[in-house]
């Protein structure tokens, strides 16, 4: 298992080094990168024998075990199946990209992102702890964001990237909350332990909220209705990305999560109904929109949505047969859809268009690619002898086996499949067979690197279809067993004998052919209908909501962040005094029983001086009078200090006060007269705020009188003034001896202030120009 960890690290290092390699390595570089991925595939395949015997591997590095937070890897049938998919598809897509991305100047960045995604996706699949999985999950969202927005000079690409990111990340956050709840319920987030604690979780009172949160993550990632709209938008990405992320791997992460957790959370009525209904709606919706598109890639995107819906539906049904069907269909879909997306890219590259109305008969210029595409499309249609046929048969069987809502689901499934057959036939006969049509120059034969990926995938589809039993034993059975250990074996064959399922298959194909024959007539109508009548688009609604949110935030910010300093001060004063008043009123009775000293005549006079000077300073219009009154306040306070035995303080205060007055006089000469800026109402408001603050400060002083500041500190200074500091003026001794370092800091502040003053006054500036 450490080997797998090392492989993950190698993959990350390869990703980091890939830009250099792509720049220097020339043509061979993508092949080298592909080899790294293929090596991972081969290495993982080596585990298949061991895993297929029912074993599982676990590897844990403890991180914060108290919070169930570990870095864990877990390899069983299911994760092996997905890991092989990720590495296998990865190596093919890397080769494909090598040629496809040639004209892009930023291709080194592309390869870095693609490999980073592969690392993240493989990490997600192999995670043995839900938090580890979450981290990789978000990393796939981020790399998907960067890849969708790769053509960042196009606004549509940027918009689609942002949309995909926001939806998947929002879902991811919900999912994390769900994981935390799972951790609280089960006391662990290790997958191998969670698999044992399904009963605890399903019977827990918080089961439903946790389920909904986890499903939010899975549904957003796997583009389920109503979150499906980000996936067609993500088709702005270069075709290799669509083939890899948005059909074969990343969008399946949600399905993977559902499969992983189905022994833990599955099987309840909530699980069953939410999954089947969401899956069925997504399935039919995807089918309809796929049928009515004219862009090849958009057709593929919507069929992908439809397929993801089918997978979720299968997991929701949750019978033995439906789980078998889900795993097989997942493989089937990854094979044909990966091939088809690469072919879409190939067509786009050599023909310069993906518009189904403008191109056709491509088998005459690109026979290999067309053959691969036709094989894949037959698989998509679910026709024999392809593996797609087996997948579809099983899905029908699964729906048959369901007692209550099975019939309804069967109708939905048949409808969707009829559409799939029609689309496949339309693509085969219009795009690849038939008369050659192209908008621009005559298309060239695509390069070998572009053809090999689709050809291999189509070949595998065909081989699996012809010899399904081998694959089943080796790969699929272990995966199915990790979802449901009670399923003992998987018998796959093309021929099931005459039964209801086969009958329905016939009906499907017949209806599909009819729908195909209508395709040319109906498709423009539907396209028209979609643009004219069906104007409500979830993607637009999402954008509008986003804009609304940004607008409101802006309004809120400009309200709070007014930019006027007095409003900031006002907010601080009001908030502080309201809180302080609350506390003061709350503890009021304690103030009442305090004894106070009686004031003498001198003190009364001094207080009178302070009060009257204060009022003058505030109210007077003359600057000089205001400053002098302020000085009087300062001297008054100094006098109070003298009366109460604080000689040093009084001297310092009076000196400082004098200096300030002098400074003021110097500066005031250069300043204009007081202007009256504010209205009467605002002055009254400010006065009210001022009294509010002043009032609580009064209360604070009264309360402070009760406090007994720790006398030990003062006693220490008093007792040790002479023995330790050899001085009898205790205040002085504290400042220059006991707390000398503080005084040094104080002096430093003064020096800095003095330097600042000199700098400000000496700097020569021209009036009006900033310095």
């Amino acid at each position: 298992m450490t080997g797998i960890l090392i492989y993950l690290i190698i993959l990350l290092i390869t990703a980091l080094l890939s830009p250099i390699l792509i720049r220097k390595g020339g043509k061979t570089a993508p092949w080298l990168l592909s080899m790294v991925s293929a090596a991972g595939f081969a290495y993982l395949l080596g585990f298949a024998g061991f895993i297929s015997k029912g074993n599982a591997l676990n590897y844990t590095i403890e991180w914060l075990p108290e919070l169930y937070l570990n870095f864990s890897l877990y390899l069983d049938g299911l994760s092996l199946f997905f890991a092989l998919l990720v590495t296998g598809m990865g190596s093919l897509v890397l080769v494909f990209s090598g040629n496809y991305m040639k004209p892009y100047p930023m291709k080194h960045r592309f390869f870095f992102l693609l490999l980073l995604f592969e690392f993240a996706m493989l990490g997600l699949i192999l995670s043995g702890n839900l938090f580890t999985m979450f981290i990789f999950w978000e990393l796939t969202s981020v790399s998907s964001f960067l890849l969708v927005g790769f053509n960042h000079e196009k606004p549509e690409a940027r918009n689609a990237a942002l949309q995909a990111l926001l939806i998947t990340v929002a879902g991811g956050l919900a999912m994390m909350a769900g994981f935390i709840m799972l951790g609280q319920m089960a006391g662990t987030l290790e997958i191998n332990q969670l698999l044992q604690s399904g009963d605890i979780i399903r019977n827990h009172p918080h089961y439903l909220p946790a389920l909904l949160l986890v499903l939010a993550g899975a549904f957003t990632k796997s583009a389920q209705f109503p979150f499906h709209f980000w996936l067609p938008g993500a088709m702005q990405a270069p075709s290799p990305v669509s083939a890899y992320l948005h059909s074969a791997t990343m969008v399946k992460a949600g399905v993977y999560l559902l499969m992983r957790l189905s022994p833990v959370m599955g099987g309840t009525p909530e699980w069953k109904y939410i999954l089947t209904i969401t899956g069925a709606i997504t399935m039919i919706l995807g089918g309809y929109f796929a049928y009515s598109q004219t862009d090849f890639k958009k057709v593929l995107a919507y069929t992908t949505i439809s397929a993801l819906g089918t997978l979720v539906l299968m997991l929701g049904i949750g019978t033995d047969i439906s789980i078998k069907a889900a795993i097989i269909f997942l493989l089937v879909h990854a094979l044909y859809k990966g091939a088809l997306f690469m072919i879409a890219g190939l067509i786009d590259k050599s023909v310069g268009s993906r518009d189904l109305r403008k191109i056709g008969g491509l088998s005459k210029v690109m026979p290999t690619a067309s053959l691969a595409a036709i094989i894949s499309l037959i698989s998509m249609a679910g026709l024999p002898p392809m593996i797609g046929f087996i997948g579809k048969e099983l899905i029908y069987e699964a729906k048959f086996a369901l007692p209550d809502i099975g019939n309804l689901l069967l109708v939905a499934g048949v409808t969707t499949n009829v559409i799939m057959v029609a689309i496949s036939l339309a693509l085969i006969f219009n795009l690849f067979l038939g008369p050659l049509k192209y908008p621009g120059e005559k298309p060239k034969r695509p390069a070998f690197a572009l053809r090999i990926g689709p050809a291999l995938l189509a070949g595998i589809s065909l081989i699996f279809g012809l010899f399904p039993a081998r694959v089943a034993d080796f790969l699929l059975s272990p995966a199915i067993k990790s979802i449901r250990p009670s399923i003992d074996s998987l018998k796959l064959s093309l021929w099931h004998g005459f039964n209801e399922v086969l009958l329905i298959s016939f009906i499907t194909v017949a209806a599909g052919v009819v729908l195909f024959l209508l395709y040319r007539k109906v498709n423009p109508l539907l396209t028209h209908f979609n643009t004219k009548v069906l104007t409500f688009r979830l993607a637009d609604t999402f954008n509008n909501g986003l804009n609304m949110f940004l607008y409101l935030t802006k309004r809120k910010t400009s309200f709070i962040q007014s930019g006027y300093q007095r409003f900031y001060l006002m907010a601080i004063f009001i908030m502080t005094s309201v809180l302080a008043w609350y506390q003061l009123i709350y503890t009021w009775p304690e103030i009442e029983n305090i004894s106070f000293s009686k004031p003498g005549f001198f003190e009364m006079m001094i207080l009178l001086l302070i009060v009257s000077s204060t009022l003058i300073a505030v109210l007077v219009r003359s600057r000089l009078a205001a400053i002098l009154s302020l000085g009087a306040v300062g001297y008054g306070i100094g006098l109070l200090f003298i009366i109460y035995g604080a000689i040093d303080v009084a001297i310092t205060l009076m000196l400082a006060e004098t200096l300030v007055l002098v400074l003021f006089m110097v500066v005031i000469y250069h300043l204009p007269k007081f202007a009256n800026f504010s209205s009467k109402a605002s002055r009254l408001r400010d006065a009210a705020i001022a009294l509010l603050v002043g009032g609580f400060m009064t209360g604070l002083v009264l309360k402070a009188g009760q406090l007994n500041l720790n006398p030990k500190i003062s006693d220490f200074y008093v007792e040790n003034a002479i023995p330790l500091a050899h001085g009898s003026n205790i205040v002085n001794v504290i400042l220059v001896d006991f707390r000398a370092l503080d005084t040094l800091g104080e002096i430093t502040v003064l020096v800095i202030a003095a330097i600042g003053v000199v700098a400000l006054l000496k700097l020569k500036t021209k009036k009006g120009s900033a310095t």
Partner: protein
Amino acid sequence: MEILLAIVIGLLYAAGVYLLLRRSIVKLILGIMFFSHATNLLIFVSGGLHKGQPQFANDGINAVSSNPTDPLPQALILTAIVIGFGITAFFLALMYRFYQVTGTEDLDDLKEGENK
């Protein structure tokens, strides 16, 4: 006396707040000075009021005399006064400069200047 002093301190704070909320930068400085006065008094009063002789250690043995005035708040206020003086001096220079460069003493003009 404590009650009266408390009211005076409250008044000083109120004056400070009121002046801080003015638009004129000169009044802003006056407000800050009121704040520092009020705070000094606050610290002083919270140390307890004791009329009479300043606190001196007599001979080191019998230091705690009949005068229980607490020396610690005084030391703190001393520091505060000096720092307050430094701030005021710096602020005055800054205000002078501000007026020279912007030609205004209205703080609201700072906001408008930002948008230019």
